[in-house]
């Protein structure tokens, strides 16, 4: 199985990189661009075949390492 994990900054956490990207997009002359927030995308191959157990494993890795829950949210798909 493969876990596809998305990590994003929580609302209210300043994202200066997102702001810089927003400025660069506007610099391309593209109009109609609002707030830009950037994050991380991580793929993890799993040996586990049971969906429930895989979810528990992914939860643990997200909580303990991949995301810092003080500043970040995470979500994932497993398939």
């Amino acid at each position, binding site marked *: 199985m493969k876990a596809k994990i998305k990590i994003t900054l929580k609302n209210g956490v*300043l994202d*200066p990189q997102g702001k810089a990207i927003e400025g660069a997009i506007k610099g391309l002359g593209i109009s109609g661009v609002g707030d830009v927030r950037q994050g991380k995308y991580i793929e993890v191959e799993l040996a586990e075949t049971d969906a429930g157990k895989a979810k528990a494993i992914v939860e643990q890795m997200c909580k303990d390492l*991949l995301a810092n829950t003080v500043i970040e949210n995470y979500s994932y798909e497993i398939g």
Partner: protein
Amino acid sequence: MLRASVIVFPGSNCDRDVKTAIERVTGFAPKMVWHGDASVPSSDVIVLPGGFSYGDYLRCGAMAAHSPIMKDVVAKAKAGTPVIGICNGFQILCESGLLPGALLRNASLHFICRDVFLKVENDQSFFTKCYRKGEVIKIPIAHGEGNYFADSETLDRLEGEGRVAFRYSDADGEVGAASCPNGAQRNIAGITNETGRVLGMMPHPERLYEAALGGTDGRRVFESILLSTLEAA
């Protein structure tokens, strides 16, 4: 006698600076402890140095917080051994849960390497007792991720409990947005845990401990360590 241990992570680059600072100021050479070791020798103080542990992969300090030695550092800190984290060390302390909050990318996105003024807010802790509350000192910062963040409840608690050790200020001690180099909330440059025995700070006191380096304002961090240790002996 001062038994200090400096933890060396792959990518640490201020480990030998802080070793020299401790040795020159206190007269006692620290032990250098590799991150892959399982335990820290019995110590009066543990130092997490500055640098770019694990290349800052994932988040600054995130990988180091899970390296083998950190289990023992966390256990010893919880049992009362004083721990100081400087720059990357501060990031590691936050990632390991010994200090609250997180250090985000500087608001300007720039890596900032220059002297800054700090206002001393706490002169009672293990690491700050040789300073005087309210005095303004000058110590360099050198970081890309030093923008301290915590929710407002945590910030109120830190302030209410006197756990803000240093704030960025101007030369006159004025604390405001204009004197904050990195966007840190409430100009926070350093905080302690509940007991004052764990300190995280972004500025580098080990870079200004004798006049030949351009100043001595960092020296008293190491004098405080020695004094606190001798007082407890």
